[in-house]
C-alpha cells in the first residue's frame, strides 16, 4: 500500500503544472470561502456596533409603544423564576434622538448594572480606567461615540441635560450610551422603549457557520416572555440588519460558488490524470490491486490536493479579508479554518471521487450526463411546485446542472457537426483547426462547463448586486432621506419651516391604524406629491389612490390596479392600489396615502415626523432655530447616518465584486489545467502541421483561436444562464429569504465584464500549454515527411 501511495505522490510530482493548477484552484476557492466568512463576521460586528442597536451580545428585542415598566419587571420576574429558560440576560432599553453638543445623536439607555457586559473592557469603552461608572450611575455620565468628536472629561449638553462624557467608544456611530435614568432624562421619556434579551443558545449555529443564513431561513425564532410579550430575533426586528444579512447571505453563496467551481476543476484534473494513467491502472490490476483500492488512492490524491489548496487558501483568505476590510490585525477563527479545510478537502474528495467513477466505472458513456439532466429536470419540476427558499436555490442548481449536462455538450455537438459538415471545403490548416477544436470541446467539456458556470454565476451575482445597490439606495431614499427629521408630539408648522433660510422643502407625516378590506394595515399619511411618491418607486402624485407595501400585497393577495376599501374608525373609503412598494422586509402590511384622502376616515392619527430638506450641508443653525421654537421636539440630521450606511454597504459591494473576480480566476485555473492535460494529444496535430510546413506562428495562432473559441462558447452559453441566475436571485431567492424582491434590471456592464473576462480567461489559460506544445516541436520543419 505504501508503494502505491508513493507512486501516487511521484506521479503528482511528475506533473507539477497540473498539480499546481488543481491546488491553486482549490486554494482560490477556499480563499473566497474563508475571506467571505471573515468579512461577514467583520460586517456583522460592524452592524452590532454601528447598526440599529449597537449593543453586542443581545439577540432578541421586544418593542412596543405601549411597553410599561410593569411589563418589563413582570417579564423579568418570570424569567428569574425560571419560566423562560431560553433567556440568559435581559435589560430594558430606551432609545431616541437628541441634540448632543449641537449634533443630532442617537441616545441609547439601558440598565447599566444588569447589562454589565456593555461596559466590559473592549466592548465599547476603549479604556475602562478613564471611565467613571459611579458618575454614570448617579450623575449624568455618558459614553459617547468617537464620531461625535467629544473627549472624556467634557461636559456637554444632551437634550436639556448637562452630561459628563466619562469615556469615548471607538466603534459606535453617533451614539451616546447612558444609564437608564440619564437616558430617560435626555430623551424626556418615562417608559422603556424596548426590552433586550439574550438567548442562552446565542446565535444559531448555522448563523455562526453561514452568516446571513438564519435570516434567510427564519431560524432565529422568537422567544415568548409571557403575558403577550414576544421577543423577536434582532435579525428579524431590524430591517437594516436584515438587509445587511441578505447581502452577507448572497456573498456566502458567491464564496461557496468558487469552491463549487474548484470541485469541478479537481474533477476535470483528476479525470484527465486517471485517463492518462490507464496503462498504470492495468498493471496495478494485474498485480492484484482491486478497483476499490485504486479508487481510494485517487480519492486520497484528491483529498491531498484539496488539503494543500485549503491550507494555502485559508491563509490567503485571511489576508484577502484583512486587505478588503482594511483590518489592522490578522483575523482568523476556528470556524473560518474549519470551513476552509472542510471545503477544500471536500472539493478535492468529491471531485476526485466523481472523476474516478467516470474514468473507471462509467467509461465515457453518455449515461452520467443524462442522469444529471434527468435529475435537473426533476429538481426543476419539484422547485416549480414549492415556494420555499430551498426551492429557489434548487432552481439555480438545476439550471447549472442543465448547463453542464445539456447545454454545453449540446453546443459542442452542434458546433462539431456544423464544422464537420463543411470540412470538405476547408484546407488542411482549417480542417486541423476544426478537428482540434471539436476535440478540445469534447475533452475539456467539464472545464468549459465550469468556466461557463463561473461566468454565469459572475453575471448573475453581478446583475443582482447592481440591482441590490440600486434598491439599497432606494431604501435609503425611502428610509433615510438626506434631511432633517423632526420628531414631535404636536404638529410642526410646515409653512414656518419653509420660510427659514436654506429650507427647500418641509412636509409632515402621520400614522394610524386601519382595516384594508377588513384586515389590519398600518397607514402612513403624507402629502402624496411626486417627490414623496418617488421615494416609494412610484413616479406620479397620489390622487385618491394609495401605495401598498409588498408584504401587504403578498399577505392579502392584492395587485396594482385593484380596488380596495380602507376602513378607519370614522368611516370607509374606496381607493386603488397605484403601486406596490418594497418595504424591505418589514413584516406588517402598510399603505401610504394622503392626509387629504384618508385623514377624514381615520381616528387617532399620530403625528409621526416632519422632514426638512435643505440646500446647504450645515444644518446646525436650522436645528437651533427649530429647537428654540419646538423645545420638546427631537431633531436629527439623517445625512450622517446615511453616509455611514452608504459607506458600510459600498464596502460590501466591493467585496462582492472581488469575489466575482475570484470565481473567474478559479475557472481560469481549471481551464489551464484541462488544456495542459491535452498538450500531449495536441502535440501530434501540431507536429503534423509543422511537418506540413505550417510555421510555428501559424500553429500558435491556430491554438489561440481554438482557446478563444472555447472561451467564446463557454461565455456565450453563460449569458442566458447568468441572466436566469440573476432573475431567480432577485425575484425568487430574495423575496423568499428576506421578504422583498429586488427589482430586476439588466446592467450591461455586469453582463459584459464577466463575459469578456471569461473569453480572455480562456485565452490566457491556453497560452502556457500552447506555448509548451509549440516549443516541443523541435527545430526546422520536417518537409521531407510530406
Amino acid at each position, binding site marked *: 500500500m505504501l508503494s502505491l501511495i508513493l507512486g501516487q505522490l511521484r506521479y503528482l510530482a511528475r506533473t507539477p503544472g497540473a498539480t499546481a493548477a488543481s491546488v491553486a484552484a482549490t486554494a482560490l476557492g477556499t480563499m473566497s470561502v474563508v475571506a467571505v466568512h471573515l468579512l461577514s463576521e467583520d460586517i456583522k460586528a460592524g452592524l452590532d456596533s454601528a447598526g440599529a442597536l449597537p449593543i453586542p451580545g443581545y439577540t432578541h428585542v421586544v418593542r412596543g409603544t405601549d411597553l410599561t415598566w410593569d411589563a418589563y419587571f413582570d417579564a423579568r420576574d418570570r424569567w428569574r423564576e425560571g419560566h423562560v429558560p431560553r433567556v440568559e440576560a435581559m435589560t430594558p432599553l430606551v432609545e431616541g434622538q437628541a441634540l448632543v453638543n449641537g449634533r443630532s445623536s442617537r441616545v441609547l439607555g439601558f440598565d447599566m448594572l444588569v447589562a454589565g457586559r456593555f461596559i*466590559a473592557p473592549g466592548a465599547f469603552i476603549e479604556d475602562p480606567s478613564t471611565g467613571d461608572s459611579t458618575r454614570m450611575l448617579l450623575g449624568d455620565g455618558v459614553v459617547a461615540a468617537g464620531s461625535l468628536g467629544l473627549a472624556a472629561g467634557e461636559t456637554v449638553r444632551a437634550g436639556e441635560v448637562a452630561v459628563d462624557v466619562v469615556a469615548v467608544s471607538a466603534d459606535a456611530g453617533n451614539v451616546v450610551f447612558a444609564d437608564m435614568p440619564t437616558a430617560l432624562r435626555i430623551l424626556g421619556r418615562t417608559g422603556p422603549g424596548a426590552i433586550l434579551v439574550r438567548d442562552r443558545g446565542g446565535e444559531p449555529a448555522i448563523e455562526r457557520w453561514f452568516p446571513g443564513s438564519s435570516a434567510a431561513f427564519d431560524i432565529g425564532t422568537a422567544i415568548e416572555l409571557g403575558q403577550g410579550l414576544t421577543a423577536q430575533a434582532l435579525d428579524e426586528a431590524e430591517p437594516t440588519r436584515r438587509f445587511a444579512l441578505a447581502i452577507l447571505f448572497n456573498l456566502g453563496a458567491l464564496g461557496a460558488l468558487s469552491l463549487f467551481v474548484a470541485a469541478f476543476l479537481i474533477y476535470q484534473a483528476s479525470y484527465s490524470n486517471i485517463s492518462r494513467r490507464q496503462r498504470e491502472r492495468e498493471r496495478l490490476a494485474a498485480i492484484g490491486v482491486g478497483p476499490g483500492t485504486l479508487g481510494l488512492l485517487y480519492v486520497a490524491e484528491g483529498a491531498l490536493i484539496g488539503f494543500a489548496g485549503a491550507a494555502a487558501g485559508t491563509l490567503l483568505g485571511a489576508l484577502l479579508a484583512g486587505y478588503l476590510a482594511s483590518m489592522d490585525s490578522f483575523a482568523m477563527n476556528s470556524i473560518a479554518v474549519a470551513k476552509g479545510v472542510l471545503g477544500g478537502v471536500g472539493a478535492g474528495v468529491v471531485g476526485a471521487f466523481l472523476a474516478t467513477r467516470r474514468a473507471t466505472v462509467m467509461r465515457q458513456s453518455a449515461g452520467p450526463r443524462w442522469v444529471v439532466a434527468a435529475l435537473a429536470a426533476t429538481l426543476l419540476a419539484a422547485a416549480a411546485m414549492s415556494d420555499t427558499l430551498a426551492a429557489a436555490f434548487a432552481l439555480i442548481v438545476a439550471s447549472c446542472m442543465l448547463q453542464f449536462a445539456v447545454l454545453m455538450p449540446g453546443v459542442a455537438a452542434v458546433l462539431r457537426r456544423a464544422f464537420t459538415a463543411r470540412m470538405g471545403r476547408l484546407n488542411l490548416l482549417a480542417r486541423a483547426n476544426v478537428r482540434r477544436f471539436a476535440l478540445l470541446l469534447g475533452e475539456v467539456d467539464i472545464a468549459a462547463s465550469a468556466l461557463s458556470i463561473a461566468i454565469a454565476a459572475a453575471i448573475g451575482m453581478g446583475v443582482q448586486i447592481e440591482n441590490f445597490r440600486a434598491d439599497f439606495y432606494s431604501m435609503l431614499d425611502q428610509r433615510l432621506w438626506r434631511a432633517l427629521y423632526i420628531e414631535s408630539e404636536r404638529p410642526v408648522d410646515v409653512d414656518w419651516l419653509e420660510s427659514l433660510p436654506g429650507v427647500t422643502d418641509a412636509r409632515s407625516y402621520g400614522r394610524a391604524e386601519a382595516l384594508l378590506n377588513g384586515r389590519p394595515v398600518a397607514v402612513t399619511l403624507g402629502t402624496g406629491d411626486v417627490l414623496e411618491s418617488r421615494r416609494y418607486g412610484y413616479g406620479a402624485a397620489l390622487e385618491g389612490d394609495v401605495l401598498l407595501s409588498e408584504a401587504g400585497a403578498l399577505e392579502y393577495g392584492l395587485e396594482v390596479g385593484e380596488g380596495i376599501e380602507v376602513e378607519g374608525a370614522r368611516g370607509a373609503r374606496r381607493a386603488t392600489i397605484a403601486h406596490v412598494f418594497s418595504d424591505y422586509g418589514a413584516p406588517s402590511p402598510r399603505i401610504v396615502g394622503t392626509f387629504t384622502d384618508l385623514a377624514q376616515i381615520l381616528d387617532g392619527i399620530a403625528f409621526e415626523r416632519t422632514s426638512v430638506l435643505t440646500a446647504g450641508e450645515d444644518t446646525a443653525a436650522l436645528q437651533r432655530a427649530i429647537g428654540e421654537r419646538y423645545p420638546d421636539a427631537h431633531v436629527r440630521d439623517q445625512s450622517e447616518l446615511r453616509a455611514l450606511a452608504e459607506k458600510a454597504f459600498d464596502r460590501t459591494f466591493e467585496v462582492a465584486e472581488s469575489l466575482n473576480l475570484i470565481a473567474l480566476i478559479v475557472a481560469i485555473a481549471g481551464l489551464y489545467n484541462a488544456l495542459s492535460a491535452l498538450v500531449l494529444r495536441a502535440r501530434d496535430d501540431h507536429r503534423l502541421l509543422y511537418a506540413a510546413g505550417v510555421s510555428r506562428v501559424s500553429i500558435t495562432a491556430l491554438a489561440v483561436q481554438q482557446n478563444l473559441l472555447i472561451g467564446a462558447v463557454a461565455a456565450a452559453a453563460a449569458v442566458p444562464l447568468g441572466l436566469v441566475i440573476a432573475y431567480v436571485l432577485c425575484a425568487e431567492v430574495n423575496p423568499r429569504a428576506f421578504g422583498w424582491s429586488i427589482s430586476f434590471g439588466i446592467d450591461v456592464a455586469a453582463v459584459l465584464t464577466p463575459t469578456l473576462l471569461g473569453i480572455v480567461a480562456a485565452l490566457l489559460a491556453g497560452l502556457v500549454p500552447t506555448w509548451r506544445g509549440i516549443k516541443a516541436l523541435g527545430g526546422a520543419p520536417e518537409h521531407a515527411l510530406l
Partner: protein
Amino acid sequence: MRSFRPGRSRGAATLLAGGLASLFALSGCNDADGSARGGALRVGTLLGESSAAGFLVADTVRPFEFPRDHGAHPRFRQEWWYLTAVLEDAAGGEYGAQFTLFRRAVSADAGDGPWRSAQVYLGHFALTDVEREQHVEAERFVRGHPRLAGVRAAPFAAWIDGWRLASTGAATWPMRLQAPARTFGVDLVLSETRPPVPQGDRGLSAKGPGAASYYYSVPRIAVAGTLRIGDREVEVSGLGWFDREWSTSGLDAEQIGWDWFALQLDDGRSLMLFQIRRRDGARGGYDQGILVSPDGAARTLGGADFALSPERVWRGHAGTQWPVRWRITVGEEVFVVDAAIKDQVMDTSIRYWEGVVRVSDPAARSLGRGYMELTGYTDD
C-alpha cells in the same frame, strides 16, 4: 466579619467594593445563573474607591434595636445579610445552602428616584449536595430599586432580582427564603430558636486600626423546606446561621484575608470564630469568636482564647491552595473541622471558598456541622 475584602494585592479594598467593581469590569457575568465565571477580581477600576465622606462610621458601642436593625443602614457604606444552613433529607443525605445579600452605597447621597439609587446589591446563592459531591452557585447584581433589590426592616424582606428572604407574617420570624435559579433552587422556612447574639464588644466588632463594624448573629435557626438541584427535588430540614453586619471602613493594607467558622455542635452549643490573616503571617490582634451555650448564654472569645491551624490543603482551580481541614483549639477543647466536600469554591466574580464542614474531635468522633469561609487565597 465579612465586610472586609482580603485583597491580597490591594489591601484595604472591601469585599463589596471589590465585588461590585469587578462586576463592572467583567463581561457578561451577571444575569447568568451557574458557575465557572472565572472570578477574575479587578478591583475599583471603574466603580472606584468611593469616598467614606458622608457615611457614618462604626466606632462606638450602640444597642441593637429590632426589627429596625434587621433592615438596611444606608448611611453606612456596606452591609450584608448572610444565611447558611446545613440540611438533611429523610434518607440522611447532607446538603448545604448559602444565601447572601450584599449592599454597597456608591455615594452617601440618597439618590433621586427609583432608578437613581446610590445602593447597589450583589446576591450570592449556592447549594452543596455532599453525597453527590456537587456544589452550584449563582450570582445576581442590580441596583437598589423597588422591583429589583432592596431591604425592608418590618416586616422583614430582603430581595434581589427574583430571590427573596422575607418574614412570612407581621413578625420578623419565621422567614421564608425563595431562591430559584436556572438549575437549582430552594424554598425554605426559617424559624428563630435563639435570640440574636451581638459579636465583638456588645456588637461593635473591631477589624483593624480604626476599623470596625456592627455585627450580630442568629445561631441555630430551624430550617425546613424544599431544595432542588437539577431535576431532583428533596424535602430537607436542619440548622441555619444568620449573620448581619454593616460598616464603612475596610481592611488595612497588611490584612490579606480571613478564615471564618460558624459551627453548630451536637451538644447544643454554637461556636463562631474568625481570624484575619496578615501579610507577614503574624496575628493582628483582631481575631474574635463567640461561644453560645444551649441556654443562649454567650462568651466572647478574643484571639488569645483560641488557636486555628490548617491541617490539609486542597489545590483547586488555577492552583489555588485552600486549607480545607483545620484544627481549632478553644481552651482545653480541640475541634477538627473538615470540608464535607473539597470543592465548594464560590466561582463568582469574587472567588472564595464557602461550604459545609464537619466537626469532630481528634479521635474522629462527630461533634457537629457548620459552615466555613476562606477568603484571600486567590491571586486574582
